């Protein structure tokens, strides 16, 4: 019963209803499938009917198609190293067996880059759990809400998955405020040489692309850009250019100008209280001043 819930898509099912009712299922059985996919509660007789007829039929259909636990969906295959793809398929199969009925995704440098630190295995789970390493594998749990994140939108562009990934609507709150916060965080990370700077930079690049309605980078593009920026002698200079470019290209940027001006005055006030950090603050203010000058 659980498998059914995870492998069928209600929208698609409704679309093809005329083809499957009454050939495969009766109208009532179709109704029960709809209830199931909508997480509605079954009465005990419905529960019985479901397991006696629908589950059995579904099992038979899967067996007929030879698809049970062998589904592999590959995204951006042209970017995946062929030998790695073969291995990844095997790993996907193994992890699909280990995490029964779970959506499993393999992504990251292992697929597209000669060198890789570990193999990222993503397990979509109802609840968030701590990630862990198992030999060369890094098991990451993602809660179902992650489907609607910017991170997932980028992840699914280059990956292999045991389920078809439908078009995703991003529900994560992303706006110029979150982008400016990331800019501040990034400035800090770079200045103190924080080990996690790559993650912050990845988010910054993704948010910039999203806000300016450009294509979101996949993990290979993201990796190349992050490494490229961090390899330069002055990564902050490139980031400052990105901030200017992004804000100027965001639709209705005029609305953001007052809060950028506020932020600039706030920096001025902080400089008075923390003169020891004046140079840093002035550097962070530079692109914001330019945005105000160019956009006003």
């Amino acid at each position: 019963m659980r498998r059914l819930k995870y492998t069928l898509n209600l929208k698609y099912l409704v679309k093809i209803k005329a083809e499957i009712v009454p050939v495969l299922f009766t109208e009532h059985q179709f109704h029960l499938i709809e209830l199931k996919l909508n997480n509605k509660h079954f009465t005990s007789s419905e529960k019985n009917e479901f397991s006696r007829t629908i589950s059995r039929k579904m099992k038979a259909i899967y067996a007929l198609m030879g698809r049970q636990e062998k589904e592999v969906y590959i995204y951006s295959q042209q970017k995946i190293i062929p030998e790695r793809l073969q291995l990844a398929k095997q790993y996907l199969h193994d992890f699909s067996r280990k995490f029964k009925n779970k959506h499993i995704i393999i992504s990251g440098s292992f697929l597209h880059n000669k060198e890789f630190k570990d193999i990222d295995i993503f397990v979509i789970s109802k609840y968030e759990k701590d990630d862990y390493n198992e030999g060369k594998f890094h098991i990451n749990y993602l809660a179902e809400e992650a489907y609607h994140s910017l991170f997932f939108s980028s992840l699914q562009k280059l990956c292999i998955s045991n389920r078809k990934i439908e078009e995703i609507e991003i529900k994560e709150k992303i706006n110029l405020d979150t982008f400016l916060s990331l800019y501040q965080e990034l400035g800090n990370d770079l200045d103190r040489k924080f080990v996690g700077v790559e993650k912050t930079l990845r988010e910054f690049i993704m948010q910039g692309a999203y806000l300016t309605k450009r294509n979101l980078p996949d993990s290979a593009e993201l990796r190349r850009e992050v490494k490229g920026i961090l390899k330069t002698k002055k990564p902050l200079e490139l980031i400052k250019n990105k901030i200017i470019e992004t804000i100027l290209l965001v639709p209705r940027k005029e609305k953001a100008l007052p809060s950028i001006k506020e932020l600039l005055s706030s920096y001025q006030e902080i400089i008075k209280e923390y003169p020891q950090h004046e140079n840093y603050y002035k550097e962070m203010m530079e692109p914001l001043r330019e945005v105000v000058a160019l956009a006003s």
Partner: protein
Amino acid sequence: MQVEEFKTEVEKILEAEIKFDGHVNAVVSCLTEDKQKNVLDWIKECKLGIIRPEPCKNYREFMSFIYKSNDNKIRGILTKEKKCLFCRIISRQSQIL
């Protein structure tokens, strides 16, 4: 260190009454002694002006000090009123990659 003991220590360092928000209890109780010490050392550096605060965009009267653990899983924000006392700690444990 117990959570309450930790909170007292924070208030002692900052010489102010601090409002502990969000998941502070849950996060602190999961930290090892070493990690708790790292956070306290960071708070001391905030107090001494070594750590740099960032302006808060939507709350102009405040500034915030941002803590991120090396593994990027623990985050904390210490807020301070401009030219005034430290006032609040918000903390969360992150699963995001």
